[in-house]
């Protein structure tokens, strides 16, 4: 993009010795190598401002950007039986869990929340790739079922952000059973005529794609996301051929009929609002800030024609 980001930033960076480099201030884009200032990255939803490479974003950060005013309430997920197989590889499963919890500050690989987007009440679930590769075990299964049940109870659409390497091996066959379990969750939404929108993020692979991630009413993927059942490495080893550039990426899947859309993360919120409101038969979203509580009814936007509880106000000033 510009010489400052490509040239000056790494130079500035080199002024610091390795140990002194404040790790929390800069990070390097995997796409183009540009050094990006952390705050800038956060403001840009972890999308490189130079090459638009989409970096991982935690479910909590994603929800903060997604929900109106960053306000959402977590939906509780029933705790599953921990370590049902007493699984142990090089480490004990409970030890791996604790390490992941410590590294991410999260309980498990999926976060479920309810709130409003563009004043449209929804339930959302997001998978956390940084938590043991986002792997689908009993907790993730429970989370998706809880999300679907909550959506059905509140009569709201469910928006699910998928990201996973696949099933959680440490839970053996019980992780595999999350494929039918989560499919039941999708059926609950279908029977209740509620929209189920899947946003496939990098990477969404294995049993996750073969179940709830491919059963949406609408499939949207983030640019460049790897989406597949068998991963490229497995295929290359099996067929002993090099796979073409872009194989199993979001754009490739769009061409092959598997996705409705590929959408930049920065445009995703508006698009989700638009799609959910149209599927629900709601009038267009009112853009801009919420009216003051004492605003006369005549000036209230159309979205208020339906009965709706007052919204929690964002903590920043409601006036532009």
């Amino acid at each position, binding site marked *: 993009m510009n010489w400052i980001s490509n040239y000056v930033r790494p130079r500035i960076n080199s002024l610091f010795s390795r140990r002194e480099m404040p790790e929390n201030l800069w990070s390097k884009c995997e796409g183009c190598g540009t050094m990006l200032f952390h705050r800038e990255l956060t403001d840009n939803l972890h999308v490189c401002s130079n090459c638009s490479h989409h970096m991982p974003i935690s479910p909590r950060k994603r929800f903060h950007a997604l929900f109106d005013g960053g306000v959402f309430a977590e939906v509780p997920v029933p705790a599953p039986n921990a370590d049902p197989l007493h699984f142990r590889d090089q480490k004990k499963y409970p030890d791996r869990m604790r390490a992941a919890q410590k590294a991410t500050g999260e309980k498990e690989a999926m976060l479920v929340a309810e709130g409003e987007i563009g004043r449209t009440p929804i339930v959302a679930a997001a998978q956390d790739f940084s938590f043991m590769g986002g792997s689908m075990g009993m907790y993730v299964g429970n989370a998706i079922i809880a999300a679907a049940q909550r959506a059905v109870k509140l009569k709201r659409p469910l928006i699910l952000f998928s990201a996973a390497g696949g099933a959680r091996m440490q839970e053996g066959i019980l992780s595999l059973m999350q494929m039918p379990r989560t499919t039941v969750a999708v059926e609950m939404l*279908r029977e209740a*005529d509620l*929209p189920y929108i899947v946003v496939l993020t990098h990477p969404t692979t294995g049993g996750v794609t073969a179940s709830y991630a*491919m059963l949406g*009413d*609408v*499939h949207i993927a983030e640019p460049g996301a790897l989406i597949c059942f068998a991963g490229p490495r497995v295929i290359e080893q099996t067929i002993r051929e090099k796979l073409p550039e872009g194989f199993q990426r979001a754009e490739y899947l*769009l*061409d*092959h*009929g*598997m*996705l*409705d*859309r590929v959408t930049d993360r920065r445009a995703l919120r508006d*698009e989700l609002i*638009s*799609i959910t*409101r*149209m*599927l*629900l*038969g*709601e*009038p*267009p979203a009112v853009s801009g800030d919420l009216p003051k509580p004492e605003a006369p009814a005549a000036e209230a936007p*159309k979205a208020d024609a339906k009965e709706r509880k007052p919204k929690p106000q964002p903590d920043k000033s409601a006036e532009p």
Partner: protein
Amino acid sequence: MQNYLEFEKPLAEIEGKAEELRAMARTSEETDVSKEAEALDRKAADMLRDLYKDLSPWRKCQVARHPDRPHCKDYIDALFTEYTPLAGDRNFADDHAVMGGLARLGDRPVMVIGHEKGHDTKTRIERNFGMARPEGYRKAIRLMDLAQRFKLPVVTLVDTPGAYPGKGAEERGQSEAIARSTQKCLQLGVPLVTVIIGEGGSGGAVAFATANRVAMLEHSVYSVISPEGCASILWKDADKMREAAEALRLTAQDLAKLGVADRVIPEPLGGAQRDRHATVAAVGKALAEMIVELEKKTPEQLVDDRRKKFLDLGSKGLAA
């Protein structure tokens, strides 16, 4: 720059001359040619009226195929807001000959689906000249299912020379895809309205046009086979397309008499290509009227209405 059809050649000459005169008047002050130019304009207007007063069926075919006619994308861009294209058949590919997605007509969310022919060499190839493959029909079926689930009216815009006659298309079940699409049209418990905006080419058109209400633009055509194809089969002479066009009764006016078209939307003098805005607006008005009328019906009534319409077809001859 106006694109003239073969039969418009004399008109092209006069309009060209008038344009030349005006250009001359702009450069030199001495010669006053405005009177002459006006006379030519009047002559051109008379000729246009005469040419279009009683267009032969073959000429109508040419107008229906005119490259400057508004195409599906033009209608979608102009008439709908929040258009959110949805892609893919979730099986093999996304067919660019068929476009469709969620959109709002006024504030009313609808599903819009149509054939798109493209407007220049590049887009025509991309769109396969509006000839859909099985994936196009399967995408349409998927979108109609989505509309059904969320009770959205379906708008289809038909403009296709016919379904694509290719090897791959056959292998992947072109006929099955068309049959299923027609069947889906008949099953919808939501209003389904169609406008034939250009060419209604055979089964490829029926797959989208098995609707509660079918409107045709004044110079659009809808036929079991192209006049050229018919001529080469029945006359054993492809040059007999004028005779074939005559015999096939493919004009909007004849189809209205036969009950295949429920209404004819008038086009501006000289065809849709001479005033694209007026044409698009007229189609928008017709669409809104048809949807408003049908919205009063229950899902069962909509299915019955559609069945009855097609069961009764043929009982009415041209003389009626």
